[in-house]
């Protein structure tokens, strides 16, 4: 029996992720220095891990409430208010999810109806476009420009809006560009968003990892909280990718609707991870600060090294990615990444996988030891010198 015909057309039509293809290539090789990793190089801080052991020893091995343990939601609520001046009711306006990934999925499935358009700002995290499609919506992409430091301009939103536009997905700081939008820039966007009555999905998973300016959470901007679903999680700043824990905060009716899907499809986020996250919220500040300082140093290092090599790279304000231009080499981003991998065993991610605006750039993650970064820069220098 041939089973392909049983796969839904929608899934069949979904493009396989370009990251996946590149992973297969890199995984076959030895001695690869990878700048292709979208996660921290730090192991989860020991006190979080130890708290999870403790919870397991105490027998916390069952389901939790659908929306997540109330103690954890309370701590997240306190954290959001302490760090970002946000006020969310832990009982009604917060849901704990399996990574920010699930929060994005829940949010889009909750609001998107067939025919609805959702604006995605590219270069972007690879999951947004497919999730909008899976939710039955139509992704409309905007390409931010290198000359604007990959910052979204309000006019660009205006241009993309049609009567069918329902929501816009924002990501600040952004993966893969590391672009950081400050308060004034967000306020400009907020004006257009309000004018056109859009719903905002604000992915702020890298909010802690900003290096030069104070962070402004999108819903903290006047009148934006009522139309924003805030998405965040523990993966990046708390070095907890493998625990699979995130959350969404937003208007009570939307969160309740999200919990409805969550209760049938997931029941709840992993219990042992929720206990670790509880410790992260209560006693994680110091660890987050230390890791952030280290990322900042490595950002300084990689950005000045890339520019020295001849790959022009603006200073990214957040996350842990540098997004240098490789146009000078005359190669496409895929060619650059593949040849670099073959010749020098350094893995970077071709910009094109993050949407058409990413062509001409590669993503270099600097969540890697200084020693490895140093070696990677030597190898890239050799590679680029042959081509300039």
């Amino acid at each position: 029996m041939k089973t392909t015909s049983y796969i839904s057309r929608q899934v069949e039509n979904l493009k396989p992720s370009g990251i996946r293809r590149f992973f297969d290539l890199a995984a076959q090789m030895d001695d690869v220095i990878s700048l292709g990793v979208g996660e921290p190089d730090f192991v989860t801080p020991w006190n979080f891990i130890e708290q999870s052991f403790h919870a397991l020893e105490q027998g916390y091995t069952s389901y939790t409430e659908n929306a997540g343990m109330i103690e954890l939601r309370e701590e997240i609520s306190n954290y959001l208010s302490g760090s970002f001046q946000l006020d969310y009711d832990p009982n009604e306006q917060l849901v704990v999810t399996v990574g920010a990934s699930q929060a994005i999925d829940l949010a889009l499935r909750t609001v998107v109806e067939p025919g609805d358009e959702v604006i995605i700002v590219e270069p972007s995290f690879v999951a947004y476009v497919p999730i909008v499609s899976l939710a039955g919506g139509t992704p409309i992409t905007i390409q931010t420009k290198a000359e604007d430091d990959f910052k979204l301009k309000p006019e660009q939103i205006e241009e993309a809006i049609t009567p069918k536009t329902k929501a816009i997905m924002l990501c600040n700081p952004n993966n893969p560009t590391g672009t950081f939008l400050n308060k004034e820039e967000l306020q400009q966007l907020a004006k257009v968003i309000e004018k056109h009555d859009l719903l905002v999905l604000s992915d702020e998973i890298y909010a802690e990892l900003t290096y030069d300016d104070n962070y402004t959470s999108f819903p903290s901007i006047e009148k934006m909280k009522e139309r924003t679903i805030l998405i965040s999680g523990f993966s990046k700043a708390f070095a907890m990718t493998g625990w699979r824990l995130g959350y969404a905060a937003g208007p009570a009716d939307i969160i309740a609707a999200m919990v409805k899907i969550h209760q049938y499809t997931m029941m709840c986020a992993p219990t042992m991870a929720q206990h670790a996250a509880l410790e992260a919220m209560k006693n994680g500040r110091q660890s987050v600060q230390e890791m952030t300082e280290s990322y900042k140093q490595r950002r300084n290092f990689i950005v000045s090294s890339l520019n020295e090599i001849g790959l022009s790279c603006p200073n990214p304000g957040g996350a842990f990615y540098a997004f240098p231009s490789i146009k000078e080499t005359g190669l496409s981003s895929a060619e650059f990444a593949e040849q670099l991998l073959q010749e020098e065993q350094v893995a970077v991610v071709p910009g094109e996988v993050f949407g058409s605006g990413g062509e001409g750039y590669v993503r270099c993650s600097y969540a890697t030891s200084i020693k490895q970064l140093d070696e990677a820069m030597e190898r890239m220098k050799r590679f680029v010198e042959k081509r300039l």
Partner: protein
Amino acid sequence: MKEIEVELLKLIEKNANLKVEKIAKLMGKSIDEVSELLRDLEEKKAILGYSTLIDWAKVLDTEEVTAMVDVKVTPARGVGFDKVAERIYRFPEVKAVYLMSGAYDLSVSVKGKTMTEIGKFISEKLSALDSVLSTTTHFVLKRYKHDGIILHDDDDDDKRIVVSP
């Protein structure tokens, strides 16, 4: 102390072998600025030296022996414990001396080639001091972590997948 001084010190505390050029790049400062900061910190004696943490067991046939000695002393009039502490810390065999609260007064770390050598030092030098009332010696059997560094930690390979979103 200024924030950049703290940042610099934290960097070289972790790795005294970092070159000035690299420190400058990491901190986003010029080489001159960093050199000057280092000079200042050395002058202020905030930086006392640049030492290397060595696992001697990896290079020497015989492992070095370390003993932690709890020492009870009679403090001297006027100078308290400082005078006797000095008498003790001047010996090159002594690697560290701390004044402690609790059941004894000084915690003395002594290093030697063999247990016999350390035993000899304790009985002939340390215990023989007039102000030393008693000593209790504990030999170190295995070092797991020293100065914040986990030893024999061969498990530091990257467990992440090579490319991820």
